[in-house]
């Protein structure tokens, strides 16, 4: 599933655009602990989190994640948005909480790694 299709389908607000709009989302990961995401998320994953500060961009960029979905209507600050634009990291905003977002993505075929 392309990021723009995913955003449209689930009503995510596109806060910053992906570097490449054709990129396909491959799997997902949900966590608020950065070290956990660093260790276990896979490149191409969509990352579901409540974190909004600037380091989510560094993590997403380093891990080459497809997109970050910031849940529960939380808004990243300007610094985060600016850095995401610079680095071409796609930030999406969801009104629903993490469990709900992850569940819908899973239902749509975006799976995690079972380990």
């Amino acid at each position, binding site marked *: 599933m392309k990021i723009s299709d995913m955003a449209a389908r689930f009503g995510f607000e596109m806060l910053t655009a992906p570097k490449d709009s054709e990129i396909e989302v491959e799997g997902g990961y949900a966590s608020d602990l950065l070290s956990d995401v660093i260790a276990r998320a896979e490149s191409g994953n969509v990352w579901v*989190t409540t974190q909004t500060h600037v380091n989510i961009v560094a*993590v997403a960029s380093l891990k080459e994640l497809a997109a970050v979905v910031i849940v529960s209507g939380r808004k990243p600050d300007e610094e985060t948005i600016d850095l995401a634009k610079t680095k071409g990291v796609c930030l999406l905003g969801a009104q629903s909480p993490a469990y709900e977002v992850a569940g819908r993505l899973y239902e749509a075929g975006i799976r995690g790694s079972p380990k």
Partner: protein
Amino acid sequence: MSGGSDSEEKIRMQLPIRGGDFSKAGEASSKIKNILKQLGVSPAVIKRVAIACFESEINIVAYANKGQFSVDITTGEIRVLAKDEGPGIECVEMAMMEGFSTAPPELREMGFGAGMGLPNIKKAVDWMKIESQVGVGTELEFKILFGGGENG
């Protein structure tokens, strides 16, 4: 340079890291990652290097006043010495345990301080050494082999 492996191509870099500057955290690690990509190092190895570098970088940004990476890349391996001027680690053995953290609440709220940093590094590297002096700073050195070492 003289030495046994002087026929190998070598890349040497010093990358400064500023303590407390979270907006720049990850830049040194990204630079290293991009160089390894250009060199054609396998994605599985790059992933491990990225984990170890990022965790080391975050530790310096979160805890130290300043620090730097000294990076040595040969055809067979990467060595990183992450050296900082900072508070040091009182008990390295405890810090190596998963879940142990001295992070203040502000850091934990940002999703750091889960006590996973050093254990993550240990899992990612083929060799590591950590020396710390309280009130002076910490030196963490690690090595990752490109040829699929014990973790490859």
